């Protein structure tokens, strides 16, 4: 066996050892030698990630209290009630005139 072959075999063994270590998922053994500790929750998505990654809640609902449509209805209702009241007054007046006329 040449020196090159022996080095190749050694590198293969080291690679295998690294793969075995990553598969076991040991928390105190980083998956890659030399890298700093990765995220403590092992990169799995948790509730915090879900909340931080979600779109903010929005609403497009508007209050219509002072909207043009509602103001128009209020005005139309007022006009209608005024017209009806005037009609009532006219009818009462006509009734009073007819009563006097017949008497």
């Amino acid at each position, binding site marked *: 066996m040449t020196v090159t072959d022996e080095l190749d075999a050694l590198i293969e063994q080291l690679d295998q050892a690294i793969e075995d270590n990553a598969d076991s998922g040991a928390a105190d053994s980083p998956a890659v030698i030399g890298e700093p500790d990765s995220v*403590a929750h092992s990169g799995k998505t948790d509730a*915090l990630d879900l909340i*931080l990654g979600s779109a903010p809640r929005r609403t497009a609902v508007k209050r219509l209290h002072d909207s043009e449509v509602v103001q128009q209805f209020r005005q139309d209702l007022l006009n*209608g009630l005024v017209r009806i009241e005037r009609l009532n007054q006219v009818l009462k007046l006509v009734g009073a005139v007819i009563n006097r006329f017949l008497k």
Partner: protein
Amino acid sequence: MMGGLVVSFRCAFVSAAIGLCSLNAGCASGAYVDLSAARVLRSVAAEMRQAVEEYHADLAQSDDQREASAIGAFITRANEADRDRVQLEQDGAALSEALAKLRADRAAAVQRYIATLDNISLLHETADGLKHHGLARLRVGRNIQELLSIEE
């Protein structure tokens, strides 16, 4: 000539009576439509309010669960960090940010809830308006009937 005048007068009376009867019928049918529409609006408003209350309660409960899950996730992360100060600070910052986001989400839900309840109150206002309009038309009908009874 007198006979002609009497006939003209009678025709005028009959025409007026027919006109008043038509007006009475129109007022009455329109009034009942107004009153029925008012009842429908009130019923719809009540059911809509019930639906909104239920939805808001469900949403608040869901937000409570999200908050509890966030706190639980932080505790898990803190345990995994195992006194790693840098990691703990990062996880603490993540929790703060998540809680702030949840508060903003709740505020949006409350804004939507209040605006919807306000709009539902407009249904009640419209119903009251139609009711007043309908009752006013009924009063016109009663006055017309009184007038017609005088003419008879």
